[in-house]
């Protein structure tokens, strides 16, 4: 299996542990990822103010993957949603597709819809399978309670993202369960992390983040688990800033899914970048040790 790896803008600079862990896990699972240096911004942030530029920026990435004959493996859920929406829009409207292709032609690019856009979680679930992952999890967790955070732009709008059942999704829970950890049911599981409004309306953004964290903690979770750099920054860097200004302690630390999976697969913490998280998550390894006794 071979994919073009789409990292987006945030992961390499602000959540490098996500990339590190994803590469380690994918390598061990025999999934080859190719880096295309020409990949650029997915267009997501500009969609608010300039739809056509968004479409062009997203389509350019799709066209680059098509040129290489590769499907996309996306780590960021906002990038994923953005690329999916662009692909959907061009699939729906031949006029939009033509207009975009006329612009892409200046770079010798062309998009005809031949690229599948997949999120890391979909690849792990559909192409590898939770059952196969369970077999690979040679050092499973024991007694670890995880609050899985699905992330909006993968789940919704479901007719476009085709990720999972939007009201009762299972993919992420089953993947977490494959590591031996228990994926909890918690009321705000499918809610937004608050990231899209950071920098725009910080009070609102942080109140939503705080609500989720408190809810997860009340459900009895040991850790939050995410598969998106924005969600991770919100629960990691921003949670630390928030608790520092409240003179409180962070309530629920967050781990990126490939870090969780990697630990269960026996990959060492350093190769998964556990030390790169802002909030310390090293204690999660103690849930592995109990199993070994």
């Amino acid at each position, binding site marked *: 299996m071979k994919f073009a790896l789409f990292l987006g803008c945030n992961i390499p600079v602000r959540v490098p542990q996500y990339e590190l862990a994803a590469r380690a896990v994918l390598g061990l699972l025999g999934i080859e990822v190719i880096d295309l240096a020409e990949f650029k911004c997915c267009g997501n942030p500009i969609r608010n103010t300039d739809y056509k530029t968004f479409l062009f920026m997203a389509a350019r990435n799709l066209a680059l993957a098509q040129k290489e004959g590769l499907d996309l493996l996306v780590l960021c859920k906002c990038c994923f949603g953005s690329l999916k929406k662009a692909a959907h829009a061009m699939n729906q409207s031949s006029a939009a597709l033509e207009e975009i292709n006329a612009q892409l032609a200046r770079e010798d690019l062309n998009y005809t819809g031949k690229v599948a856009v997949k999120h890391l979680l979909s690849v792990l679930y559909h192409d590898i399978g939770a059952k196969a992952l369970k077999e690979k999890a040679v050092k499973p967790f024991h007694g670890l309670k995880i609050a899985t955070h699905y992330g*909006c732009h993968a789940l919704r709008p479901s007719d476009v993202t085709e990720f999972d059942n939007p009201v009762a999704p299972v993919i992420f829970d089953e993947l977490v369960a494959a590591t031996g950890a228990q994926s909890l049911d918690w009321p705000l599981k499918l809610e937004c992390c608050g990231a899209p409004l950071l920098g725009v309306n910080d009070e609102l953004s942080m109140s939503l983040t705080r609500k989720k964290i408190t809810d997860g903690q009340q459900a009895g979770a040991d850790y939050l688990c995410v598969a998106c750099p924005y969600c991770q920054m919100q629960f990691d860097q921003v949670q630390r800033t928030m608790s520092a200004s409240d003179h409180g302690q962070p309530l629920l630390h967050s781990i990126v899914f490939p870090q969780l999976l990697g630990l269960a697969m026996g990959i060492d913490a350093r190769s998964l970048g556990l030390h790169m998280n802002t909030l310390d998550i090293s204690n999660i390894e103690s849930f592995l040790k109990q199993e070994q006794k």
Partner: protein
Amino acid sequence: MYSILLYIALAVFGIGLIYKVSGWFRFSLGAHVPNMTAVARLTAACKGLLSVAFSPKLLTALRVLLVDVLLQNHIRKQDTLRWVMHMLLYAGFTFLLFTHALDKVIVTSLYEKYYLALNPFLLIAGTMVIAGVAVALCRRFILKVSRLNTSAMDAYLLILLAVIILSGMAMEFTKLTSYTHYQTFWDIHLTACLVGLAYLPFSKMFHILTTPLSLVANAVMDGRSDPANIQTRQIMELDACMHCTNCSKRCSVAAAYDRLGNDKILPSERMAFLKEYVSHKRLGARGLATIQKGIYLCTNCDRCTVICPAGINLRDMWFNVREEMIQRQPSVALMLTPFSYYRGLKRPALAPTQYNQPLQRAKEALAAPFAQVADTKAVIPLSAANSQFKKAAPLVGRTGTYAFCFTCENCSTVCPVVGAHDDPQQALDLLPHQIIRSMNLGLKDLVLGSRMLWYCLTCYQCQEHCPQGVKVADIFYELKNLAVMEAADFAGSKNLVGHASKTGH
């Protein structure tokens, strides 16, 4: 005669050098600049230099000098052809400088009988420079490396370089055969060299001094360094930029430039602008709007900083310049989008008013054309329906679905933003279902002026839960696009952007 010319050239070079270097201590960039005199900045720089000289950082500096300055490893890692070009020019020229231009000072003092009728070393070095110029021309005009724009200065310098070397070589060849020809070439050669010398501090060739400085400074400095020195380094970095445009080639949002044509989106063009801007800080209304939009359209992905062969810390440069620009009044609609995420993360580094005011201005500018929203007491006339607004062709096919709404209010019920407020109407103006309903009534002002649009998380809960298949979140995106256009027209008509303040402070 020639000594007079030499002294004039040297004087121009010296004055240019002093003018340029003093600028590093006189000028500043950023909204929050330590209020210091140039002398205090110079003192701080000397202290910084001393502290590096007597610390392990000296080793770092030496390593950078060897690896990145002498061997140009930075460039080799990125682009071999460019490295070959640069090494040919740089090694050839350095050799010529020491063994030929300064031969009386250096070589003859070591080796008295240094004189060759036809010096093969000079020819080899000259050929290297010519080959370098050839590669440079090839990259610009045959390979047409993308986004490598050729300015007048680029052209002058390449011509000047070619004239110096070709006349020098002709001089060598005619030395034994024709004295008159030799004399002519000597005149051309010397004049060209002196022009080059005098022009150096004002041209991009100044980078032969500043780029090594930037590489070393960035290797030994970090966020904990004296803010005065960070400021000084930043201004010096403007001179270290060669306008090689590597940053723009790698820029994450370069594709937006291809569509919008605002060259301030591209890092290399921002640098060219800043070089000119930093000394006087004058900016007209249109200039301000262009740089504000260009510099805010940045995902802060750090690629430019990672790739810069001069080691310039572009990440901090953009952060500071962005703050300066948004403090200079008018407003940027992009502030109300995820482009603000990085600024949100950096909030602790900014003073509260400095952080909030530009955001507030952006919100006000977007609401300004739609006064009806703010006046909650006013009676909305039923005949006000704007049928044109209803008929406006949707950008996305899906957005016409608002007509299916039967006002069940599901969208507002599931909206986490509505749920986060005790009095949502007071904080958001219209709730999601009210926006959709108002669209059906053609109440354009209410729809486009609602703060709800800009406080929408785009989490798509509303859209997913609509029993009628109204694409609520997609509609909101489109309304935001429309509101931005209307606000720009409104500001233009009111000439609100007519008076950009003179300084950013």
